[in-house]
């Protein structure tokens, strides 16, 4: 067991974890952050995407111990003061989700994408989301949602709602 200290969605937390525990398991099983989900066992689906120190990562591909001292933001920490993040708003507005299982990962990845490239072309959006699988939407409306967020926010940067 290793002691880790980190900040998750703005709260300081500490736990003893097994060295092999994945960050996604830590979030779900220890912290009850079940908004972040697991869709595969080969790091292909991106459903588990969170931000680690402001950068999107697949949390099934990071050990909990690697997050020691880090700042983690999950889908549950994206809205601030009861205000949806512009990308969350855009997904709803554009019907960018159906079953919603891929959605936490898609949103977290889209936020990161827009942070790096606030005005992406359709192609740049599609390439930027390549690591996130969705079986329901055919991606059409997810792409539209990212475009919408780009147009409707003064910069869809994390923590800066429009």
């Amino acid at each position, binding site marked *: 067991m290793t002691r880790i200290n980190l900040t998750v969605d703005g709260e300081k937390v500490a736990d003893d974890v*097994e060295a*092999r525990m994945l960050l996604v*398991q830590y979030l*779900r099983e220890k912290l*009850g*952050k*079940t*908004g*972040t*989900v*697991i*869709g*595969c*066992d*080969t790091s*292909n*689906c991106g*459903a588990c995407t969170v931000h680690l120190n402001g950068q999107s990562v697949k949390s099934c591909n990071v050990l909990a111990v690697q997050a020691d001292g880090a700042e983690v933001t*999950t*889908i*549950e920490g*994206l*809205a601030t003061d009861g205000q*949806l993040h512009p990308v*969350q708003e855009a*997904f*709803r*507005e554009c*019907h960018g*989700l*159906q*079953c*919603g*299982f*891929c*959605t*936490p990962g898609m*949103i977290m990845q889209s936020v990161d994408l827009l942070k790096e490239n606030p005005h992406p072309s*359709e192609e740049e*959006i*599609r*390439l930027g*989301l*390549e*690591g*996130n*699988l*969705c*079986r*329901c*939407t*055919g*991606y*059409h*409306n*997810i*792409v*539209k949602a990212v475009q919408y967020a780009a147009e409707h926010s003064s910069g869809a940067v994390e923590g800066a709602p429009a």
Partner: protein
Amino acid sequence: MTAVQDAPAAESEIGKDRRRKEDQRLITGRTRWTDNIALPGMLHLAMVRSPHAHAKVLSIETAAANAMTNVVDVLTGADLGEAQGVNANAWPITTDQVTPNHLPMAIDRVAFAGEIVAVVVARTAAEARDAAELVDVEYEELPAALDLKEAAADTVLAHPDLGTNKSAFWQLDSAGQGSGRAIDEVLEEARRDGIVIEREYRQQRLIPAFMEPRSTVVDPTGEQITMWSATQIPHITRFLLAATTGVPESKIRVIAPDVGGGFGGKLQTTPEEWITWFVARRIGKPCKYTETRSESLVSAHHGRDQWQKLTLAATKEGRVTGLKVDLLADLGAYVGIVGGGVPVLGAWMFNAIYKWDAYQFNCTTVLTNKTWVDAYRGAGRPEATYAIERMMDELAAEVGKDPLEVREMNWIKHEEFPFTTVAGMTYDSGNYEAATAKAKQMFGYDELRAEQEQRRANNDTVQLGIGISTFTEMCGLAPSRVLGQLNYGAGGWEHASIRMLPTGKVEVITGASAHGQGHETAFSQIVADRLGVPFEDVEILHGDTQVSHKGLDTYGSRSLVVGGEALVLAADKVIEKARPIAAHLLEASVDDLEFANGRFSVRGTDQGTSITEVALATFASHNYPEGMEPGIDAESTYDPVNFSFPHGTHLCAVEVDTETGGLKLRKYVCVDDIGNIINPLIVAGQVHGGLVQGIAQALWEEAVYDDAGTLVSGSFVDYLLPTAADTISFEIDHTTSPSTTNTLGTKGVGEAGTIASTPAVVNAVVDAVRHLGINDITMPCTPERVWRAINHSGGGGADPTEESAMPHFSPDGPNQDHGETGEGEDL
């Protein structure tokens, strides 16, 4: 100023692109997936699965696993025995169907790689998995039936005790049932003085690959045993748990909480559910099992997997006179809940939108030692649509006409509805001319054809192909009497109830069970309109058998056309129950009351009361008519009178690089006629998602097995789900021919995109290279297969069609293409 005081007609909810009610919780992570559930003292299960396709289980050594810290128990099939129940087949397609007994956990023989032979129960999932590694199973391998055609010849038996791999033979014959002429006659005529086209197509095996892995939690600690499961069918699961495990139905509560996609893949009662049920009851503690993605791909049922032999008869001008279909359908190792029935659902769809003289559909279902096969989005109808839409293109090529022109020569004209087809179905409504005209215009059909000409003339290395699919499908499974005739184990009705709460809120309970379709939104719109209450005040409850005690769940594009109609009927009953109470309160005669926009008003006066006020009055019950019950809640069970038949014209442009075989989707346009639309936003989403699943069959997806019967594409590394980078944006629109089989005039939309798009894409790919002498490319049309087809290397690849042709094929007959089929290899 005189304001218009007559209750201004409230804006209709139906037809509005309402944002979804479901979304708030889903975009903020406040979700209730089954795997999120944690109960005090909950134990975790890990399954031990067979690595062999077919083997005897000689011994299972569990002591080492059992000795691990925090392992509670290790159980084998022998421990579970009969008490584990069975995974039932609810639709034996013939009375003499050969159906292997399907125990959730195998006892002495496994019939596919992935079948469960033991379960480990531990305090954490990780510990259960660690211990599962220590369970030592000794197998004696048996020969496995893997190839569908060989299995159909009974060379190796998947279940030796059954004596055959052939599960059932099912036929529809237009002459036999009186819906058309005899197929042999028509073929004979065509051979003499017309055109006969014979083809064989492969429907590769697909994996539904819903994004949420399946998960089950069973809590045995209450008076009722509760199962949460990532399922499409909580009601059917409850019924079958009772029927096969002996627990009284009244003691069982099944809940499908948020469910992350299904596409037919969660239309199943699974060994994993049954084992979790058994273990929790035996140990007396809540138990959870969540599969890994790799387990999901190997053990959740697959879809498609057919060989289709087609013989089409037509006149020299291109009027189709008949079609004979010979299907081989792989069931895998067991007959799933509707496994045998899936290919049969295609029987009424091969004739699609066309008028023929004769039709015969022959289907043989075959057992093999592979993962079981059952419903996957479209279920039987995509396969049929693929076959006929590919054949219509072949016919067009044969007669040298534009494929749209040939379709038009053959399709049912809009003034001919209702139309009874050669398969014996009566189509409610449609307008193929209108949808096609609109699609052509949106697509720029003539311009693209001109560009194609140009590229051909220039011998461009990148060639353009245009693919067409004018599909129809049948939705709204199904009139119960039809299902009865088909030997199906249940009915096709749906149930709804409406509770008028005293505070003016409305609770609507539906027996449909959504898993991403947006029922909470669309159903709210229907009820809001009908009862004249605000959209926001309607709450849709579903997926919990204790709340929704009666229902048949969600599949087959039935929720709206059947479940929606049940809602309408229940709402109408609420209004009728409220009417005499309203009259009483208003001291008016019932006959003088009008109901509109949620208000009862006394004709010719300004007196009135709202339906929610009536609900409150019945709650107080201080004043209501004598002899009446104080209450206006109502319920209704609706049994559909017929299917509904949406249709559409899909057009696809694909660029093929003839040097590399590389493909590029350039444009995709579809105009679907799905009757009246409740919520255009949700409909568009269903179409987009359906399109990509169908396109994925055409271009990318295939479940591949090796010679030992191991699923090679057993993870998301190898099973190629399309990403955003592989796909394009679509142009979609609608024409509207309201359904005549339900009051809302709606038709289903859940499967339309998937059904239509696969042939549109493959037709486009073949069209791009047809001038090079190619008339087929096996799905998925990978660059390698396309390249091979262009380069004539081996022509057909691993599954040459000609050698194995059925007797009615005459290789030397007219219209055969020799050595130019472009199928790729099976791998």
